C-alpha cells in the first residue's frame, strides 16, 4: 500500500513517519514539496518538523508549496491524509481542518510522553483503536495550542470530530484539551502528538502509535477505499471502521 510522506524544507520527522509506515506494513513513498504530483499514492502523511523554519506561522508558508495544490484537492475528494504536528498546522492553514495552532500557553517548547484518549474511531486513521481507548504518545511542540471560536468548537464536539483529547495535564493550553480533530468525512485527521514516535518500546514510550497507520492500511487493503478515494467518491465508514461502498 503506497502512502506518501511529504518532505518540505524543514520537515524533520519525515524519515520517522516512513519508518512507522513500514513497521505497520505499508510502503512509504517520498513526496517532494516542489512537485505538484502525488505519485498515485493511496494516502498521504504530512510529517512533523519546522517547515520553512516555522517562521511567520507554523505551516503558513508550507501551505503554498506546489505539492499542496493536488493534495488539497484530493483530500477534499476523500484521499486519506494524516497531519502530524507541523502537518496538523499545515492542514489548518490550508483550511482542510478548522481552527489554528498557536504558541503554547506556557510559551515553552514541550517534549514529553502524553496520555491521550481516542474519542472517535470512525475515521480512516483511528479505526483500529477501541472507542475511548487511552494511549501514550510523545508530544513535542512549541506552538501546539489548538484554538478556534466557540461556534467551531461546539460544532466539532457536536459532530464527534474531536479525535484525540489530552488527559492528565494539557501540554499546551489547547481549548477543550483538543489534541486532534478530523474533517466531517473522516479522511483528513490532524493531531499534535507524534504517533510515529510510539512504534516500538526501544525508541518510544509505547507502541500505541502503530494502530494509527494500521487503520489507514486496513481500510486501503480491506476494501476498494483507495479506488474510492481516487475516484473522489465518498465512502461510508462503519463501526468496525472498514471502508464500505455507499
Amino acid at each position, binding site marked *: 500500500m503506497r502512502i506518501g510522506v511529504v518532505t518540505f524544507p524543514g520537515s524533520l520527522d519525515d524519515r520517522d513517519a516512513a519508518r512507522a509506515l513500514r513497521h505497520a506494513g505499508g510502503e512509504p513513498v517520498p513526496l517532494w514539496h516542489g512537485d505538484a504530483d502525488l505519485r498515485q499514492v493511496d494516502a498521504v502523511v504530512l510529517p512533523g518538523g519546522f517547515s520553512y523554519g516555522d517562521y*511567520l506561522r507554523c505551516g503558513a508558508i508550507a501551505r503554498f508549496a506546489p505539492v499542496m495544490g493536488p493534495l488539497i484537492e484530493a483530500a477534499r475528494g476523500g484521499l486519506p491524509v494524516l497531519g502530524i504536528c507541523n502537518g496538523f498546522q499545515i492542514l*489548518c492553514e490550508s483550511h482542510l481542518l478548522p*481552527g*489554528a495552532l498557536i*504558541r503554547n500557553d506556557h*510559551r515553552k517548547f514541550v517534549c514529553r510522553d502524553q496520555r491521550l484518549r481516542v474519542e472517535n474511531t470512525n475515521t480512516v486513521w483511528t479505526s483500529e483503536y477501541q472507542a475511548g481507548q487511552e494511549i501514550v504518545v510523545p508530544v513535542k511542540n512549541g506552538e501546539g*495550542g489548538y484554538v478556534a471560536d466557540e461556534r467551531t468548537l461546539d460544532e466539532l464536539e457536536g459532530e464527534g470530530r474531536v479525535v484525540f483529547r489530552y488527559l492528565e495535564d494539557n501540554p499546551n*493550553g489547547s481549548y477543550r484539551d483538543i489534541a486532534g480533530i478530523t474533517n466531517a468525512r473522516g479522511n483528513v485527521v490532524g493531531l499534535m502528538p507524534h504517533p510515529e514516535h510510539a512504534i516500538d518500546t526501544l525508541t518510544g514510550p509505547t507502541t500505541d502509535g502503530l494502530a494509527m497507520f494500521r487503520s489507514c492500511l486496513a481500510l486501503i487493503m480491506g476494501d476498494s477505499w483507495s479506488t474510492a478515494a481516487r475516484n473522489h467518491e465518498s465512502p461510508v465508514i462503519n463501526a468496525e471502521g472498514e471502508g464500505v461502498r455507499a
Partner: protein
Amino acid sequence: MARVVVDVMLKSEILDPQGKAVHGALGRLGFEGVASVRQGKRFEIDLAGEATPEAVAEIERAAGTLLSNPVIEDFTIHVEGTS
C-alpha cells in the same frame, strides 16, 4: 522607495500567552496601571518602487492570505509616515 507596514494581532477572543506573560512581568517589575498587553507581529515591507494604490492593494492581499491567518488574526496596513 516606499515602506508599507502590516501589523498583525491575535483576535481579542483568542488567548495571547505572550501578551499575558509580558503583562505579568511588567507587574513584577513594579509597574502598575497596565490593564492589558497584547503581542503581535509587525512587518516592514520595503517596495522597490512607489507605494502606488496597486502596490498597496497587492500587499493588502498578501496580508490577508500569507501574513495573517484570518481564523485567529486581524491585520492593519499603512504606508509608513501615513499611519
